[in-house]
């Protein structure tokens, strides 16, 4: 646990050194959020039909996605991937802790530190915008509590997926193309590009069973109050179930690979 905390502390310090890059990143996300919202505005004002989601909720959804972008597992841990590419990963095996858990701790730091730094200014600005672009606060305290809890669930899923991305580097070193593909799958199926409630009904059903929906869609819909508080337990269990499954899966592939590495002599 001590090692865990120190990993996170190092990550924070590092991040503060690159604060200008973080600000630039925040501005970029703000800009993209604006474009997405204007497109949605165009669509909503073209249709009179009943939509599965109000325009107001859709905007909040978009801002939530932009603010929490850093928390999504859209890339691996650069340092670990470099270790693997240069072959220095063998030294990692010498560390006196479970390699998967060590990588998990790093992933946790990678997903929380920049997000905390970037999301707060985005939230503040998004809440202060004119009404057509404005993010809305949760309707009540219970929605907010549910959002906090499911965001934690999202974080767990995100870390396990990040770890799987790291581990795939062990299998195909030149798999840069595959990883980018993976990241774009994560972005669209989590609801980052288009809110999941707007997807065609059948596709929506399939997506709701996949772990990606636990990343953006579930927390956000609790935040906007679309999902009632009394369903919190079910959704949170869904997230935990996926996190545990992906955790076991990651451990399993990594251990298999380590055995191979040891047999081949690294």
């Amino acid at each position, binding site marked *: 646990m001590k090692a865990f905390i120190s990993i996170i502390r190092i990550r924070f310090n590092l991040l503060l050194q690159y604060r*200008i*890059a973080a600000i*630039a*990143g925040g*501005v*970029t996300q703000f*800009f*993209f959020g604006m*474009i*997405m919202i*204007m*497109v*949605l*505005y*165009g*669509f*909503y*004002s*073209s*249709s009179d*039909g009943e*939509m599965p989601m109000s325009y107001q909720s859709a905007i909040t959804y978009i801002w939530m996605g932009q603010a929490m972008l850093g928390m999504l597992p859209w890339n691996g841990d650069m340092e670990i991937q470099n270790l693997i590419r240069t072959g220095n990963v063998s030294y990692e095996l010498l560390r006196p802790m479970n390699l998967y858990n060590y990588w998990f701790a790093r992933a946790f730091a990678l997903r929380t530190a920049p997000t905390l730094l970037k999301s707060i200014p985005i939230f503040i600005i998004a809440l202060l915008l004119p009404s*057509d672009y404005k993010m809305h606060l949760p309707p009540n305290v219970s929605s907010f509590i549910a959002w906090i809890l499911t965001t934690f669930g999202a974080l767990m899923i995100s870390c396990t997926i990040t770890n799987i991305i790291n581990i795939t580097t062990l299998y195909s070193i*030149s*798999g*840069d*193309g*595959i990883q*980018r*593909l993976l990241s*774009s*799958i994560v*972005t*669209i199926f989590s609801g980052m*590009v*288009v809110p999941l409630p*707007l*997807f*065609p009904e059948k*596709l929506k059903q399939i997506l709701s069973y996949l772990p990606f929906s636990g990343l953006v869609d579930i927390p956000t819909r609790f935040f906007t109050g679309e999902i009632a508080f009394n369903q919190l337990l079910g959704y949170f269990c869904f997230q935990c179930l996926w996190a545990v499954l992906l955790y076991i899966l990651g451990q399993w592939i990594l251990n298999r690979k380590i055995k191979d590495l040891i047999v081949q002599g690294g």
Partner: protein
Amino acid sequence: MDSIKLYFKYFRFNIESQLQYKTSFIMMSIGHFLITFIEFLGVWVLFERFGNIQGFIFEEAALFYGIVHMAFAITEGWTRGFDTFPKLVRLGDFDRILLRPRTTVLQILGHDIQMMRIGRFMQGLVVLIWAIFKLNIEWTLGKTLLLIGSIIGGNFLFSGLIVLQATLSFWSVQSLEIVNSFTYGGVQAAQYPISIYKPWFRKILIYIIPLATVNYFPAMTILGKSDLLSFSKWIGWFSPLFGILFFIFSLSIWRIGVKHYTSTGS
């Protein structure tokens, strides 16, 4: 003439050196192809849900989408040297370029020509061809030329943005990501007809970053729609030329940047 010959030699050597890593090259190209398809999936989802956007149907939007993405793919391919320009300065390669009896622009363009952007290009082409088959456009020689012209004009406009972005890095490297978001955000915004946006944003896309001139105006002309936001309906026939003018304008700013660099050395 001589410069063209040199550019083609650069071109040949770039291909040869990228083909040294054949698997990675093919994977990346396929990756780019699929990633842009996933992006397109987002557009499809919205049309499935809303039916139209301000009177434009999916097939019409696909025409806009194809033109923009093909133009941007060409830009990404041939202006990569400008896109990664801060790295060129940091590694001292730009000093090397200044030591050679050729223009900086030609050498930077030749420095890195990315062939795998063919993935995005092909995807744009597939979408464009699909749109052309679905839409009942009365094709004339003029319209065909206009279509090609708007892709070329778009390419020059995006290239101009990339050159401006590189020029800015003579003064400040840290603000680059923000400018970068204008380029990528521009691609996102121009995927849709600009008439769907609010007037203030439309004005940006007409007068400041004139994406409308290479996309909206010519595409409307091709579609045979006469409502050009109170502009004369003739504008679509020659507006792609603005892309080239914008590029020439960027090059003159670039020269100021180079002068600044050689006088400060930073």
